[in-house]
């Protein structure tokens, strides 16, 4: 009894103590990743979601591929079965076709017989109809003959009356014609007199018009000549002025470019002064920020267009940009340069600052 209780070794306590520490360490390590998604859910939902989606997608894709392979195998088997079935079906179909052909032949014979009977029936009916038609035609002929006789009589009476009417009409027409000719002669003479008078007037008017037009043309040509001379003179002046204008424009552009470079440097220096480089930043890190500015120099938006790969580094750059805004120097820029700087990129590197 006493021997067993004598010494307590250090093996079990060491194991227990180390186990305790490892457990605490695991708890502290495991609790952090567990609490991460809750915190980041509001901030970077899309990013995390994308990663998980792709991860799960791969698994799903693998599964789907397996499923697809299984399906294709199944389909192949099915296809084979279907082929067998089709072969059987063909055989069956051939048999059926043979039966059908026989049945058709029988049916054909039957139909031929029926057709013959039908034809006989039709021929009989046609004969009956022909007899009826002949009877009708004879009746018709008799009716037409009577009508013709009646028409002929009526025609004779009409011709006699017409002959009388034509004779009377002839007399009246001749009298009227004589009268019309006399009137037409008078009208013609009056019209000729009128026409001659009008022609005379037109001729005089045309001559007057032609003279006027010729006068106008002459005046217009003179004016054109004068205008052309003036235009030549004007174009020479314009050339000279445009050359001068271009020189000025080039000078302006140079000034604008210088101002733009100066402005970019100004902005960069301002941001770098406001920049707190995070402790983990190395000189190899480089973040490109795209800035959107108002013409007054106020910051509309700043975003990372090319990340350095370190989230805290990117954030520190953005914070620096926000702290350095507004860039009042923007007001002093020429309008063209202002338009250029509505949106532009800046890249940041700790090496430039240190």
């Amino acid at each position, binding site marked *: *009894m*006493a*021997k067993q*209780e*004598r010494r*307590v070794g*250090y093996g*079990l*306590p*060491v194991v*227990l*103590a*180390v186990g*305790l*520490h490892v457990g605490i360490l695991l708890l*502290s*390590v495991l609790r*952090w990743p567990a*609490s*991460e998604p809750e*915190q*980041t859910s509001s901030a970077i939902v899309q990013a995390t979601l994308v990663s998980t989606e792709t991860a799960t997608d791969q698994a799903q894709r693998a599964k789907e591929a397996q499923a697809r392979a299984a399906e294709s195998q199944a389909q192949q088997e099915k296809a084979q079965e279907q082929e067998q079935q089709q072969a059987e079906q063909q055989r069956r179909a051939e048999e059926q076709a043979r039966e059908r052909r026989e049945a058709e032949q029988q049916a054909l014979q039957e139909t031929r017989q029926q057709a013959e009977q039908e034809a006989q029936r039709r021929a009989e009916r046609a004969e009956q109809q022909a007899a009826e038609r002949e009877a009708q035609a004879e009746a018709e002929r008799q009716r037409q003959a009577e009508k013709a006789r009646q028409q002929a009589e009526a025609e004779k009476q009409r011709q006699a009356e017409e002959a009388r009417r034509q004779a009377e009409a002839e007399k009246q027409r001749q009298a009227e014609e004589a009268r019309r000719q006399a009137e037409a002669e008078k009208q013609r003479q009056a019209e000729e007199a009128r026409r001659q008078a009008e022609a005379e007037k037109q001729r005089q008017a045309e001559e007057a018009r032609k003279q006027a037009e010729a006068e106008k043309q002459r005046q217009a040509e003179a004016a054109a000549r004068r205008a052309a001379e003036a235009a030549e003179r004007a174009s020479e002046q314009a050339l000279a002025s445009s050359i001068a204008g271009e020189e000025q424009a080039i000078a302006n552009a140079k000034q604008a470019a210088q101002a733009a470079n100066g402005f970019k440097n100004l902005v960069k220096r301002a941001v*770098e*002064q*406001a*920049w*707190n*480089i*995070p*402790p*983990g930043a190395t000189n190899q890190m480089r973040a490109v920020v795209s800035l959107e500015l108002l013409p007054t120099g106020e910051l509309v938006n700043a975003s990372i267009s090319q990340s350095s790969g370190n*989230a*805290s580094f990117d*954030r*520190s750059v953005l*914070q620096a940009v926000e702290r350095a805004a507004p860039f009042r120097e923007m007001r002093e820029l020429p309008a063209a340069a202002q338009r250029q700087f509505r949106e532009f990129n800046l890249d940041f590197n700790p090496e430039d*600052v*240190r």
Partner: protein
Amino acid sequence: MNESLSIPHLIMNASLVVQLVMLLLIAASIASWVVIFQRSFVLRRAHKAHRTFEDRFWSGVDLNELYRETPAEQDVLGAEHIFRSGFREFNRLLPKTRSNQAILDGVQRAMRVAWSREEERLNQHLIFLATVASSSPYIGLFGTVWGIMGSFMSLSMAQQATLSTVAPWIAEALIATAMGLFAAIPAVIFYNRLSAQSNRLLGQYEDFAEEFHSILHRNLQGRGDREAA
């Protein structure tokens, strides 16, 4: 952000001195827990053994028999050790001297030696716990101060100081203090608890030694009366 501020990441990014401090504190914590477990096992067993021995001792068994049935000298512990050393001294002195006082003195001395050995055995390593409890907060604080020092040195290179610049450094430095407290708090609690337990046991041993001494004294008194008569 979270990944960059998680505790393991901060520990990995700390400066060398702070890392050494953390390593020391982890080692101290592990060692103190080893001591805590070992001592609590030892004390629990000693307590149990003491109770069973007292039951046996007061059950009216003959002392010679009890002395003989207990195994060899080196293996005994606790009250049994005191009993054995006292009784052996008593048996050795009894034939050599007639003076009761000399015998009782010798027995008391032997029992005191045995008791002090037991005390040493029970209080072994408890001093280590006390050391960890008192020193590890200071060690952690040293790591923190060193880390903050480093952070301010690096801050002097930046143009503008903000919370986001200082925060990672200070968080990193404060981990050292946290680890110091993590090592110290269990050490304090268990040092108090274990030393109280061992003191109680030692008091019980002392009581037993006194009682045994009085029994021997009674026996000697009886023998002296017989010889006188």
